[in-house]
């Protein structure tokens, strides 16, 4: 197993609240870093999408055009485009600078849970409650998707794209990995509805959180269980999980208002970070630095490894 060796010194976990953004856009359904981690996007239940500066905490732009609450967003590698999905069954491709809708894609039969660009932002992949993943071409004006992956038996709750792979987590309790290069579909049965899936940074493992309050680390190639992380509470809601930027820790939201950090190898709980009293719905780990975003109700909090001069108000 090519796991990164844990560093001798304990890696710093983002546990100091740097700032709180009151987004004023209803419940924050998802918070995401952009590709380089300088900006963050928040999906509001008031149908808007907002772009913020992480370091200053200022609102940069509001993107409105969705007809219902926005559920997920992703930024392209060059920060020129955003894609977002919404309960209005649409996927929208945005121009970052102008805030205009570049393309609005309809086709899903239900609300769209998750959306991702591929590496070159040539394809948008969206997973919907209708159990399908649709691959939308951003290069052409074709209103139909390139391909529809309808293997899921139930709602597709989470979706991640790597260079040549597509990882989907579905409520039917299966993690599906579409390998485009090999032309194969690997289905891993987890049995409990999957809420979130992600690749590890080294691309060797997949992480999946399910509604049995368990986060599982599976080997990508064989499907073997490498680690199981429990202790948090995730029974009803679609909560996010992720790996830290150095693959040292597994991070997950919890319904008890905390964020849980587990050591990836040992599987032990490293930190239980209190965020608020409500459900921590979404989180996003900085691509390179120990910095974490959490979304709870209408607020987004930025957590860093080192406390800043700003006062802590939690």
């Amino acid at each position, binding site marked *: 197993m090519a796991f990164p060796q844990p560093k001798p010194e304990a890696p710093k976990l983002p546990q100091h609240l740097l700032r709180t953004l*009151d987004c004023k856009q209803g*419940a924050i359904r998802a918070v995401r870093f952009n590709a380089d981690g300088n900006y963050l996007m928040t999906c509001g239940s008031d149908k808007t999408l907002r772009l913020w500066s992480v370091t200053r905490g200022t609102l940069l732009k509001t993107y409105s055009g969705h007809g219902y609450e926005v559920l997920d967003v992703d930024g392209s590698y060059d920060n020129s485009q955003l894609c977002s999905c919404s309960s209005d069954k649409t996927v929208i491709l945005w121009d970052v600078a102008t805030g205009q809708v570049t393309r609005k894609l309809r086709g899903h039969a239900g609300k769209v849970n998750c959306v991702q660009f591929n590496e*070159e932002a040539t394809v948008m992949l969206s997973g919907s409650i209708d159990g399908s993943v649709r691959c939308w071409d951003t290069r052409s004006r074709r209103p139909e998707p390139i391909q529809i992956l309808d293997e899921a038996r139930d709602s597709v709750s989470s979706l991640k794209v790597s260079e040549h792979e597509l990882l989907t987590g579905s409520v039917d309790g299966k993690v599906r990995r579409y390998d485009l290069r090999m032309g194969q*579909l690997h289905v891993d*049965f987890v049995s*409990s*509805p999957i809420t979130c899936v992600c690749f590890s940074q080294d691309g060797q493992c997949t992480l999946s959180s399910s*509604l049995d309050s368990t986060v599982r680390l599976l080997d990508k190639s064989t499907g073997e269980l490498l680690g199981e992380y429990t202790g948090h509470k995730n029974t009803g*809601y679609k909560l996010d999980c992720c790996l830290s930027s150095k693959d040292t820790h597994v991070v997950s939201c919890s319904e008890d208002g905390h964020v849980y950090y587990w050591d990836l190898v040992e599987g032990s709980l490293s930190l239980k970070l209190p965020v608020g009293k409500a459900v921590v719905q979404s989180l996003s780990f900085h691509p390179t630095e120990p910095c974490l975003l959490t979304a709870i109700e209408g607020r987004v909090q930025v957590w860093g490894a080192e406390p800043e001069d700003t006062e802590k108000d939690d």
Partner: protein
Amino acid sequence: MASDSDSEEDFVTYGTPLEPLEEDEPLRKPIPIQDQTVKDEKGRFKRFHGAFTGGFSAGYFNSVGSKEGWTPSTFVSSRQQKAEKQMSRPEDFMDEEDLSEHGIAPSEITTTDNFASGRRDQIRDKACAITSLTAPIPGDTLLEDLVAPARTSVGVELLRKMGWKEGQGVGPRLKRKPAKQKTDTGVRMYGCALPPNGSEESEEEEDEYIPENVTFAPKDVTPVDFTPKDDLHGLGYRGLNPQQALMGSSGSGHINLFTLDSDRTSSLLGDFGPRSKRRGGVSGQAFGVGALEEEDDDIYHRDALSNYDTMLGGEEPGDGLYGWTAPQEYGKKKKASDKDAAYIGKILEGFTLATKSMDNKTVYPPPVLPRDYRPVHYFRPVLDPSTVSPQVALALQASVGHMPQDSQPKGRHQLDASQRRELLGESSLQGPRSVFDLLDGKDKERLEGIRKAAEEKKTSESSSEDRRAAMVAAGVAAASAAAAKASSQQALSSRFQPTGAEQALSAWSSPTAHSAQTFKPFEKNPHKQARYDMYISKLRQGDKDALECSLDSTMTEWERSREREEFIRAAMLYKPSNSSLSSRFTRGKQEDDSNTVEVPRDQEGDVDDKQAAVKMKMFGKLTRDTFEWHPDKLLCKRFNIPDPYPGSGLVGLPKVKRDKFSVFNFLTIADNSSAVNRMADGPSQNEPPVKHAGTPKSAEPIKKSRWDVSAQASEGRTPSVEQQQPQQKEDEEEEESRPSMDLFKAIFASSSDEKSSSSSEGEILKEMKDSPVQSGSTAVPPQAQTEEEEFGPRLPPPAYPWAEHASSSIPSTREVKHKKKCKEKHKAKKDHKHKKEKKHKKKHKKHKHKGKQKKKKAEEASSSSDGSEDSDSDTDDGPGALSTEELLKRLKTLGGKKLR
């Protein structure tokens, strides 16, 4: 006057003196105006005097004289030489420049009058006077004077020798003076005052007695001066005549700008001799009467309207200047004036109306249209008997008497071989014409008998019955004999007869088809008609290859294929009228009665095994399925990845056809294992995997119990779940007492249909609204929540009053409430969790003999995963809160059971 002092200091200098130039300093600035010097041709400085005093200075420094001063050097007087009276000429006081070309007295050689013809040329003077009017500077004829020839021309000399005198016209002498020009008797309405009429004086001259035998020289004519138009005035406009204006021509009160030139000219001409008495001074109405004027009668001239022209046109330009063209012009005057008068608008000077009217272009009228002509072309419908319905064709036949087909001569290709033969008058080929001829008489008769038997069915009997039958029989025999050939044709015909043949077959073989054949499309060709009849009859019998059989095998391939098409089309169009109704409906393209459905080729492994594996945490091979999956070509391209299956048209999972058996196969992909999968998945969404510890067999009772509710459920309850018991019970009872209406709804409304689900979830919504905290969260779409119940994880709690959270430090009453609610919720969730944990433990303990309890737990778990909300809501709103999704699930499992 400058003094004669030598010193220059005495000169007055004006302005500030310039600073002396330093040698080093290069001149940068342009020389200012005051420094600019002018030198004369000899290089001497010239001083500028000012424009009014003669320009540049002359003499010696602006003075007369010389450097030596002013000395009257010319005055000499002595005893011997007396001072002469010296006549000084103007030139003596002029500078040399003045005598140069551009000076005031240029000393050039010019012609003088001395060398001109001694006698003044009156005519020329007149012409000059006239041209002076039009000259750029009126009155200036200087140039012409200068340019005048020095001597009379040879022509003039000759004329003189012939007796011509100046002032006379050229030509034979006339008896009488030619008719006086009646120039000015006509309308004269321009202007305010009546201008003097020069011709009046001449009239007076003419009035004197003219002796009969005296001939006169013809009157001289003034040459026409064609003056080029070089001014910017409008055509026909002449500027002020200075002679009239200033000289004050007699009688004219004021200058009349708009009198015709002819008038002016004539006055000029007339004026030549007796000049008007009034000269000089400006006179006229506008200027009053000057001191020099003797008459003041015109001062109070009253202007009358009658002096003005009240109509346009009608003015006759009698200018008298027609010159050489005059006689002709005058002769035609009357006529022309008529025409001109008829012409509306002023005719410009020098123009007359054309005498010859332009010859009209002959315009040929368009052809006269017939009365019933309609300017729309429509194509006369070509009545091909094979394209009209029989009724129409019959009607046409009746009315016209013939079908268009027979009216048009038959083309070569429309004839068959026998017809052509007949046309050419050839005898039929000797020898066996077809295989039929090779048969012996008995066989022939037998065949004929069969044929006749078949023919009897037909009601249509034509006169050529026998012959037809024979023909057809021959065809049949040939077809049967040349079976191999037919089979090859079959392949061909399959190309040529597409769906049409089948449609024709279906139309004719249907029970509604009438036996009565009303129309014979090929009546003109009995052979063909016979074949067609046979085809139809076979169609009636439902013969699949009726067409091939009924075609004449002796015909060429091309003819056959042609006839094949004709027959099919005819059969299609002339099918019994009853079936016209059915023609309104098309056949389904796909057969929808096939009992198959497409399912993925590769099957997933047994879910129960997987469940077990998951429980044992034996992830890996047991829980993994690998399928062949074909990404779309374009997707690969976009991902910069070579297509893993180049050349395969497949996209997605390879599919195979499977039987479909029930409506539930549409809800989930239907095959046994997937149905099982489905069943297992349904609960698995909501249960921890431990629940399914039992053997695969136990799964069914579990499922069954899940839907066959209460009895079993209530008995198998473990103490750990008893706290939930009342609520659970309620649930189950609701489910029992549910009216069947909802069941139908659930069946007929698809589960993914949001409308139905949202409507059915209205109660929950209501319940949510009841709680004060939730009321603030109505912004959250209820739909999303309701869907989540079906599809798994929900979105976290609804948007709380964000505004208040913004100022989170100050807890408002509302927030307190909210918190309370949250706590409650959490408690509920915790309860679930506890339950689950307990269950886990229990599971491990009494793994085997749990049976019914397990199923009960499954129930609970499902309810818990269905959402804490569910449990909350269900407790609150009592009976009637069963969702359609629940029912649907039940139905599905029922279906699944059936499958098993």
